[in-house]
C-alpha cells in the first residue's frame, strides 16, 4: 500500500483509453463501475474534445455482483457493437473488474462478432498509464497484423518511388503530439520522405493494417510506441529510428539516422545552423546571461532526456537535477544523469521532487504542471515540458516541441520565464540604488517582491530563534546578514545553508562577512 496525495500517471486503463480515443472507428468496452466514467472529462475538458471517448463502461453495481455480471458484460458488448459499428473492438477491465474476473475479452470472442476483438490485460495494481497505453497499442497492432503475410516486399528504390515512413506513438493527452506530428510531416516532406501512417492518433484499424507498407517506422514517443516498433522490426522486418527529434541537435541526429536507415544520402542542409532560430538566439549576445543558469529537470523519460540535452548543449545551462516519474524510462535516464555528474531522481512522489528542487536551488525548473506549482511556491521560474496534461498544455496556437519549429518554441518557452539578459545586467548595475526593490522581476513565474518578503521573514525568524536557542548553532552577525542580503534571492537559501554548514565544520560561533567569503571559497574549491 502506498500513500499517494497526487500521482503523475493514471491507471493503465487510462492509457488504453488514450489509444482508443486517439484512433477512429474503434470502440472500447471497459468493464468498470460508474465512477470510472470520470475519465471522459480528461478528454472532453483537458483536450477540449468535442466528442465523447469511444468507450462503453459496463457500470456494474454492488447488486449486480451477486448475480451474473458476465451476462451484463455481454449485453453491453452487443449493444456497443450494434450502436457504434466499429472496425475493431477493444475489450478490457479497470481495477475493480480485474478483481471479479469475468474475463470480458474471452466473453467477447465467444459472441461471434465479425470484427477483430483485441482483449486487454492491464494489471491495475502494478502498472500505470503509459505502460497501459504502450501495451494497448502493441496489442492492437499485433492483433490486426497477425495474419499479415510477409510476401517479398520491395524497397522504395526497387519500386522507384519516394520512401515512406510511419510516425508511431502520438496520442491524445500526450505532450504537444497534435503539433509535433504536423512539424515532423513538414520536416520529412522537405527531405522527400512520405508519411504512410500516423498512429495511434488519427488512425483507424484499416490504417493499422497498412503499417507494413512503410519502409521505416519513426518511434516518436518511446513510452507508447517502442514495444510496437520492436515487434514490427522482429516480425515484419521494418526497422525503426530511436532518436527523438526534440531540440536542434536531436533533430539533426534524427534526420541523419532516418536517412541512413532508409539508405538515403544525408543532405548537407541537415547540418546548417539556420534551420532553427534557437541556434542563433542562443549565440546572440543577449543570451550570454544564460550561461551556467542552474536548471532542474523532471518529467516523462523522453522529454526529460531531451530537455537535459538541450539545456546542456544548446542553451549553455547547467543541469543541477534530472529525473523522471516513468520507471520504464529509468534505464535511459540514469546514465544521462550520470554523464552530467548527477544521480537521477526516479520517483512518483511529487513532494520528493519538490524537496530535490529546494535542495539544488535552481534558477529555472523544467517540469510537469506539478513542478510548476512547486516552483511557484518556491519563487522559482518554471516552464512545463512534459505530461501529465493540463488544459494549458493544449494551446490554441501551433506549438510543437519537435523539429526546427519545436526548438524555436522551446527557446521561447524556457527563456521567457527568466529575466531578460539586458534587464538582469541593468539590475545588477543598479541594485544598490534606493529606487531599486530587490526581487523585482519583470517577467513571468516570479513572485517578485513577495518572494523576497518571504526570504526576509525567514531571516527574521532565524535571527530571533538563534538569539534564544542553542549556543551550538552559529549566529549571524548584522554584518553577515547584510552581506547575505546582497546575494540574489534565488540562491540566498542555499548560500545560507552552505555557510552555516561551513561554520559548523570550521567551529565558527559567529558568521560575519568574512565567514561568507571563507565558505564561498571552501565550496568553490
Amino acid at each position, binding site marked *: 500500500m*502506498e500513500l499517494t496525495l497526487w500521482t503523475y500517471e493514471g491507471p493503465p486503463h487510462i492509457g488504453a483509453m488514450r489509444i482508443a480515443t486517439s484512433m477512429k472507428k474503434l470502440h472500447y468496452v471497459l468493464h468498470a463501475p460508474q465512477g470510472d466514467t*470520470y475519465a471522459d472529462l*480528461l478528454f472532453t475538458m483537458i483536450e477540449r474534445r468535442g466528442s465523447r471517448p469511444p468507450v462503453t463502461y459496463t457500470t456494474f453495481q454492488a447488486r449486480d455482483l451477486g448475480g451474473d455480471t458476465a451476462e451484463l458484460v455481454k449485453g453491453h458488448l452487443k449493444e456497443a457493437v450494434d450502436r457504434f459499428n466499429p472496425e475493431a473492438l477493444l475489450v478490457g477491465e479497470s481495477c475493480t473488474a480485474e478483481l471479479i474476473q469475468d474475463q470480458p475479452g474471452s466473453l467477447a470472442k465467444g459472441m461471434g462478432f465479425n470484427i477483430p476483438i483485441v482483449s486487454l490485460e492491464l494489471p491495475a*495494481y502494478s502498472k*500505470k498509464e503509459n505502460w497501459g497505453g504502450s501495451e494497448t497499442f502493441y496489442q492492437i497492432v499485433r492483433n490486426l497484423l497477425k495474419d499479415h503475410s510477409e510476401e517479398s516486399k520491395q524497397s522504395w528504390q526497387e519500386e522507384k518511388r519516394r520512401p515512406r515512413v510511419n510516425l508511431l506513438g502520438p496520442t491524445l493527452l500526450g505532450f504537444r503530439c497534435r503539433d509535433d506530428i504536423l512539424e515532423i510531416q513538414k520536416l520529412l516532406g522537405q527531405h522527400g520522405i512520405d508519411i504512410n501512417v500516423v498512429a495511434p492518433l488519427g488512425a483507424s484499424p484499416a490504417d493499422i493494417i497498412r503499417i507494413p507498407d512503410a519502409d521505416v517506422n519513426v518511434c516518436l514517443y518511446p513510452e507508447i510506441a517502442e514495444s510496437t516498433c520492436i515487434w514490427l522490426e522482429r516480425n515484419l522486418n521494418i526497422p525503426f529510428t530511436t532518436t527523438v527529434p526534440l531540440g536542434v541537435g536531436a533533430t539533426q541526429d534524427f534526420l541523419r539516422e532516418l536517412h541512413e536507415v532508409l539508405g538515403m544520402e544525408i543532405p548537407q542542409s541537415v547540418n546548417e545552423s539556420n534551420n532553427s532560430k534557437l541556434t542563433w538566439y542562443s549565440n546572440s549576445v543577449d543570451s550570454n546571461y544564460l550561461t551556467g543558469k542552474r536548471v532542474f529537470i523532471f518529467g516523462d523519460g523522453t522529454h526529460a532526456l531531451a530537455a537535459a540535452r538541450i539545456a546542456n548543449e544548446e542553451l549553455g545551462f547547467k543541469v543541477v537535477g534530472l529525473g523522471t516519474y516513468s520507471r520504464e524510462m529509468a534505464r535511459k535516464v540514469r546514465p544521462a544523469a550520470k554523464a552530467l555528474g548527477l544521480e537521477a531522481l526516479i520517483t512518483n512522489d511529487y513532494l520528493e521532487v519538490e524537496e530535490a528542487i529546494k535542495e539544488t536551488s535552481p534558477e529555472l525548473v523544467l517540469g510537469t*504542471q506539478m513542478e510548476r506549482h512547486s516552483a511557484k511556491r518556491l519563487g522559482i521560474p518554471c516552464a512545463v515540458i512534459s505530461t501529465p496534461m493540463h488544459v494549458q498544455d493544449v494551446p490554441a496556437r501551433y506549438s510543437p516541441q519537435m523539429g526546427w519549429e519545436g526548438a524555436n518554441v522551446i527557446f521561447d518557452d524556457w527563456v521567457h520565464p527568466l529575466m531578460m539578459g539586458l534587464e538582469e545586467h541593468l539590475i545588477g548595475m543598479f541594485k544598490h540604488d534606493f529606487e531599486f526593490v530587490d526581487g523585482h522581476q519583470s517577467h513571468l513565474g516570479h513572485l517578485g517582491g513577495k518572494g523576497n518578503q518571504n526570504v526576509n521573514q525567514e531571516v527574521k525568524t532565524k535571527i530571533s530563534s538563534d538569539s534564544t536557542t542553542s549556543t551550538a548553532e552559529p549566529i549571524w552577525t548584522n554584518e553577515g546578514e547584510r552581506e547575505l542580503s546582497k546575494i540574489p534571492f534565488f540562491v540566498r537559501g542555499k548560500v545560507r545553508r552552505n555557510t552555516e554548514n561551513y561554520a559548523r565544520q570550521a567551529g565558527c560561533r559567529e558568521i560575519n562577512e568574512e565567514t561568507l567569503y571563507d565558505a564561498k571559497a571552501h565550496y568553490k574549491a
Partner: protein
Amino acid sequence: MSGATLLKESGPREVFCGLTSIVWLHRRMPDAFFLVVGSRTCAHLIQSAAGVMIFAEPRFGTAILEERDLAGLADAHDELNRVVKNLLSRRPEIKTLFLVGSCPSEVIKIDLSRVAENLNIELKGQVTVLNYSGSGIETTFTQGEDGALKALIPLMPTSDQKKLLLVGTLANAVEDRLTSIFNRLGIENVESFPPRQSTELPSIGPETKVLLTQPYLTDTARELKNKGAEIIEAPFPLGVTGSTLWIQAAANSFGIEKSLVDSILNPLISRAKQALAPHVEKLSGKKLFLLPESQLEIPLARFLSNECGMEIIEIGTPYLNRDLMKAEIDLLPPDCRIVEGQHVEKQLDRVRDSSPDLVVCGMGLANPLEAEGISTKWSIEMVFSPIHGIDQASDLAELFSRPLRRHDILNPKTFTSN
C-alpha cells in the same frame, strides 16, 4: 404526488462515484483528512475532479492497493495501519481521519471499521478515525457526503436542548445568512452539521428539529431520526419558493407566528423576485433537460420551471428517494418526466431528439454537447456555488442564464429577439 411520470432506466451510466464528495467535504472541515483506501484509479479520479495541484499538501489522499495487498487481507489491514500512522505523524494537525472505502476495497472486503476501531484504541483519542464507503458500486457523487455524515453521527453528544439543526454542507456565507434569518424569526439555537471543525459536533436529542439543506442525505436523515431528532418535512432551499417554504416549515415547527414570519420574509421575497426578473426573461420558455448526477436535479427543475418559466423535457436522477423528494415532486408541473437511473446512450438520443436550449450534465458530457450546438451547465458547479436561500435565488438562476446569454453573444445570427 403530482402528475409527474416516474420512469426507471438502466444501462451504461455516466455519473461520478461517492468519492467525489471529498472535494467539498475537505473544505468544509479543514481539520479532517480523507484517506481513500483504493486504487490508482481512485487517486486519479479525485485529483482530476478536484484540481489537486493548487494544494501544497491536500487534506485528502489515497492509500493505493498494490498486488501484494490483494493476496492477504490480514496484511492489507497491517499495511493500512502503517500508512495511517505515517500520515498522522507527518500531519499532526489532523483531528479526524475518514477512511473512505472504494470499489476495490469493498470487493476484496477490507474491513475498514475494524481498522478504524483498532486505530482508535491505539491513538487514544488524539485523532478520531471513522470510516464510510464512497465506492461507485454503491454510491453516486453526492451520496459520499451522506456516508461521511452518517459516520459522524455516533460521535454527536446527546442533549435535550431545543434547537434547529441544518444538515448538509452549505457554503459558509450562506450558512451564516440562513442562521441570521432564523435568529430574526426567534429561533436562537441554530447549529449546522457537518460543523466547520470536525471536532465541534453539534449535540442531538428529542428536542432537535432537523432541516435538510441537501436532498441526498437519506441515510443521515434516518440515523438522526433514530437518535430521536425530528425531521422537518419541506422542499429544499433552492429558489425563492423552495427557500421560503423551507424556512416556513421550520418556523411552523417552532410555533412561530405566521405574521412575524411574513413580515421578515416578505421584503426578502420581493427583493429576490426583482433580482430574478432579468434571468426569468432569459430563461422563460426555454427547454431544459437535466441528466442525472448531483441528485439536485428535481429541486432545480422545480425552481427553473415554477419560478423561471423553463419548459422541462426530462429530469434525470441517479436514484429517487420518494420520501425525501415528496414535497419537491408535489410542486412540479403536471406530466413532468422523471427518469431514475440511466442509459446514457439512449438518454443522449432523447436529448438530441428534443433539441433543448440547455442541458445540465456532468463534465465528461458538456463539451461534446456544446460541439453539437447545445448549451450546457455543469452539475458539479451546483455543489460548489452558494445557491441556497432566498437571497441566492438570482445567483442560482444566473448559473443557467449565463450559458444562454453567452450562446447569444457568440452566435448573433441565431439570436432571436423577442
